[in-house]
């Protein structure tokens, strides 16, 4: 058993504190310690993007990130994306365009898509394609995903959180 460390950080806008093993990854902490199972474990080695979360505004693969390094930072997961009014516009767009097939890659796709639009409100389809290259869908549903992202980018109504 590896050494444990006490960490504190902001999780979806709320302060949390807990003890984590030094070698635990952020994904395991979110799912197994904090019960936030929206973020998915798929490849476990940074190849598929299903575990994408935002750390201090930037997207990373939470399966590769050491949980101890969340200390003092701002972490946003798919659970943190929803707004008081309900689904986030990016989530809504994925629903409307039927971008979801089996759904396993969706939390990561939506986190990355939202990050892209937030950083580039005029995101083109090609830029969305490049930006989503770290997110794999094994149902091969990329076309509708890109339709959804483009719709949000086109409406330019993505609120940052």
């Amino acid at each position: 058993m590896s050494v444990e460390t006490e960490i504190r950080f902001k999780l979806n806008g709320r302060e949390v504190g807990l003890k984590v093993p030094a070698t635990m990854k952020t994904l395991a902490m979110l799912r197994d310690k904090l019960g936030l199972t929206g973020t998915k474990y798929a490849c476990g080695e940074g190849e598929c993007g299903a575990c994408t979360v935002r750390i201090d505004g930037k997207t990373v693969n939470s399966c590769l990130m050491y949980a101890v390094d969340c200390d003092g930072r701002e972490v946003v997961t798919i659970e943190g994306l929803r707004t008081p009014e309900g689904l986030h516009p990016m989530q809504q767009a994925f629903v409307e365009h039927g971008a979801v097939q089996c759904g396993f890659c969706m939390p990561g796709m939506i986190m990355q898509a939202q990050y892209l639009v937030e950083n580039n409100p005029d995101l083109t389809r090609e830029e969305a394609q490049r930006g989503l290259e770290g997110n794999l869908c094994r149902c091969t549903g990329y076309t509708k995903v890109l339709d959804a992202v483009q719709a949000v980018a086109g409406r330019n109504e993505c609120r940052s959180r």
Partner: protein
Amino acid sequence: MQELSAYLVPHRLDEALQAMADDEATVFCGGTDLSPQTESGARQYKATLLNIRRIEGLGGIDAQGDEIRIGATTTVSEIRRSAVLAEVAPVLVEAAEHFASEQIRNAASVGGNLCNASPAGDMSPPLLVLGASVELACWRNDAVHTRRVPLERFFLGPGKTVRLPQELLTAVVFERPAAGFVGRFRKAGPRPALEISTVSVALGARFADGRLRDVRVAMGSVAPTPLRARHVEAALEGQPLNAATLAAAVEAAAEDAKPIDDVRASAWYRGHLVRVFVEEVLNDVRRD
């Protein structure tokens, strides 16, 4: 096998170096290489897990003077988005552009990419053609000692460098490229993203009067380490960049590249790709 017994996250360089002095620390920054290596069992943790990401002065790009300095904890995304690097060293930005995925670029550090010493590391060829050196710091006689090692002498083999276990790579530095400097980078893999390069080639040189001078050519994934392609460089140095010179350079690539067959590609294919890329980057410079 020993147990991990401490986690340290220092804010000062000297604290980190003292923690490394007994040679019992596993260093990480983004963790994008360390995580899969330790999860798979390919690598074991030492007694101390040392997070260097919060050390002050270890991150960021300084291009004020004649020397460009990129701190070890600078992420590949920061390199990719750096306006000043886009101006002085676009070849490095180009390589950052094709590095893994956005999520990995946001976490991975340039220092980690170099210390991981993969023959396929994408930061190596562009930094080699920029003539970069790495700074290695250690704690000795109650003080921080720093030495510089040219990047071309840094790599010893897959995962092996001249860095001592007590030393921390603190920065990569290179001289501001001269006027007329041209740089090019090419890599290939089965898909454009998240791919460990099958072959990569970088070119850096001064281009004037139709001739290349101070030529540096670097290759990745064609030998146990990223390397300088001395034969290609010799074929190009001071020569008019015409069809005959191009043919000689492409021919010479076979002298420099000593690829192997592995799971990602055959030696034959790598040997072929490296010649194609040498020709491509030279044609690209010629067209400009």
